[in-house]
């Protein structure tokens, strides 16, 4: 180590390089704010900057904020410091932008991206309109759309307003749940803290007692959506419903599955519709295929269940149950989920059909394990979900 460099104020070129790196990292979706930039300068002032390894490790601790950041930091670091020039044009060429553009191109090829397609202004309008309908409660248009079967929706406008409703419904369910809890509040244990506080005015005698009740919390919802071909009529509606759930319930998470499992929770939280559409297009490659429920659930159990499921979790599987796998395997996986969560709900869009009997082998085998097996063919049946969630 050269003792001179540690004491030295970082020179201008270095400051420029570090600032450039901060900007570069930000472009790669790292969480780099002004604080981090300032700290990286402080870091540079106190280490031997000619030692790349130290700089790398220092910046890594400073800039990363999750495992995925941790894993890709080295690549980003290398990409930046190898090209020893001020970065104007590299941002476009490395990582960040390119896949996104590919996604754009990709999504325009897909015919099915009506999904999140609504330009923002229109979306607001549609929202306002349906708002009016809902608050009037008995408005005839809402009424009819509430009980309309999902698979009978024909034109795009109907579909779109249905999607908006699904999203808003999810939020309303949460509001109802919260209100219910407030009404229910009754004491369970004496609360020393506030009892002591109120008894001060009686000279310390606990004349009136204050009670405390364990706060009841909203459940943690985990949605597992079947997006295979047999579900294609419904899947985009349920995706919107999932988006509503994710927005309304804090701990909620969502997955989509067909022959394999895709984690869509983070993506669906994307607030901008345009970016959401791009991201969805990226991850939805290969949807509309066959179904392997058991394999998908196994993947869920293996990679996610341990971290996501807990005593407050309610797992909601949305699927028609047409599966090519073995029922025994499915049962095994369902049992695992059941053991880790509080309740297991299976929503089946076909159940709304009067002629339908749950006859597929998979469903028959799984039925005993499912706490609630309910239809999900129209909005009314979806809002019945609130009843199931309230008692938990």
């Amino acid at each position, binding site marked *: *180590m050269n003792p001179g460099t*540690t004491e030295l104020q970082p020179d201008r070129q270095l400051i420029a390089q570090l600032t450039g790196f901060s900007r570069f990292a930000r472009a790669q979706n790292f*969480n780099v*704010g002004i*604080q*981090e930039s300032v*700290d990286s300068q*402080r*870091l540079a002032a*106190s*280490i*031997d900057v000619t*030692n790349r*390894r*130290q700089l790398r*490790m*220092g910046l*890594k*601790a*400073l800039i*990363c*904020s*999750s*495992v995925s*950041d*941790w894993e890709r930091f080295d690549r980003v670091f290398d990409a930046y410091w190898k090209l020893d020039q001020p970065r104007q044009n590299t941002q476009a060429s490395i990582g960040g932008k390119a896949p996104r553009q590919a996604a754009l191109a990709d999504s325009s090829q897909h015919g099915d991206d009506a999904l999140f397609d609504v330009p923002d202004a229109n979306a607001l309008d549609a929202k306002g309109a349906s708002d009016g309908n809902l608050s009037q409660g008995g408005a005839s248009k809402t009424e009819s759309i509430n009980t309309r079967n999902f698979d009978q929706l024909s034109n795009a406008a109907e579909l779109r307003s249905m999607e908006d409703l699904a999203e808003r419904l999810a939020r309303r369910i949460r509001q109802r749940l919260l209100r219910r809890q407030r009404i229910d509040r009754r004491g369970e244990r004496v609360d*020393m*803290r506030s*009892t*002591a506080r109120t*008894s*001060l005015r009686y*000279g*310390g005698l606990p004349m009136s007692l204050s009670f405390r009740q*364990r*706060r009841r919390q909203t459940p943690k919802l985990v949605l597992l959506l079947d997006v295979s071909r047999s579900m294609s009529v419904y899947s985009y509606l349920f995706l919107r419903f999932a988006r509503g759930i994710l927005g309304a319930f*804090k*701990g909620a998470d969502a997955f989509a599955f067909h022959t394999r499992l895709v984690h869509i929770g983070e993506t669906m939280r994307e607030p901008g519709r345009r970016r959401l559409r791009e991201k969805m297009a990226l991850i939805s490659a290969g949807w509309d295929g066959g179904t392997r429920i058991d394999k998908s659930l196994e993947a869920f159990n293996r990679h996610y269940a*341990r*971290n996501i499921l*807990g005593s407050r979790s309610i797992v909601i599987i949305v699927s028609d149950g047409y599966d090519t796998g073995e029922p025994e395997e499915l049962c095994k996986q369902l049992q695992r989920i059941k053991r880790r969560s509080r309740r297991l709900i299976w929503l089946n869009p076909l159940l709304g059909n009067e002629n339908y009997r749950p006859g597929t082998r998979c469903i028959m085998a799984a039925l005993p394990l499912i706490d609630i097996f309910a239809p999900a063919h129209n909005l009314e049946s979806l809002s019945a979900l609130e009843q199931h969630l309230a008692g938990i």
Partner: protein
Amino acid sequence: MQAALDKMGQRVTDAGYIADQALLTSLWLMSELNRPLLLEGNAGVGKTEVGKILADVFDRSLIRLQCYEGLDVNTAVYEWNYQRQLLAIRRQEILHEDGLSEAQLFSETYLMKRPLLQSISGVQPTVLLIDEIDRADEEFEAYLLEVLSDFQISIPELGTIKASSIPLVILTSNGTRELSDALRRRCLYHYIDYPDYDKELRIVLARAPDIGANLAAQIVAFVQKLREQDLRKVPGVAETLDWTAALLRLDMKSLGDNPDAVVATLGCLLKTREDIDAMPAEVIHDLVARAS
């Protein structure tokens, strides 16, 4: 800086912890920049241990806050000592003393300091270990954010208490819940992975010096192989050390000598019935053979 790092590395090693350069850099940075360090990693890779070691290295006292669902201000920050307050009131009544004003009733005498308040109100700077922050509620996380950025705590009856010393803060997380971006940004970040063969061997030798180099190598090779299996709960370093201690008690010299003892002590490594069922004796014998 390298000199400081080396010195720190030496002290950490002396304290019995094997840390790589990256972790040392993070630790050094957190003391330099006065920012909390968020440690993530699987269960049993030695996250909590880092806090203890840090207290050792900087010669500070360690204050630990174990988080759980429902953790609230009363258990994490402060609580009034009601019994004592009531006693004081009664005493004043009986003895007809004057002068117990409300201000006195809510003074530090009747304040019970919980870990967070303790850690910032001491004369000597401390090390604050906030363990498994992911188990606490989001509300608590938000509160913590406030404490960690300003290092001051408001108590309605008493006013704001400013930190008399800034603690070194370590947060650990198992990832049972996604932490908020705000908290992540506030912290330096370090991910501790399962150690590779060499590092784990050094850990075992550091923690159980009595074990022969031969057996230690076999143990580590076995555990490394075991981690590649399809298990529900992958054994961490803590499990390796447990198992080492168990084998030491059994006076084992080599795993190959007595594979049945390996099967019998497997409870140190595998913690669920499913995992034990998934690893029948033949598989274990095979793993032993490959490890030795």
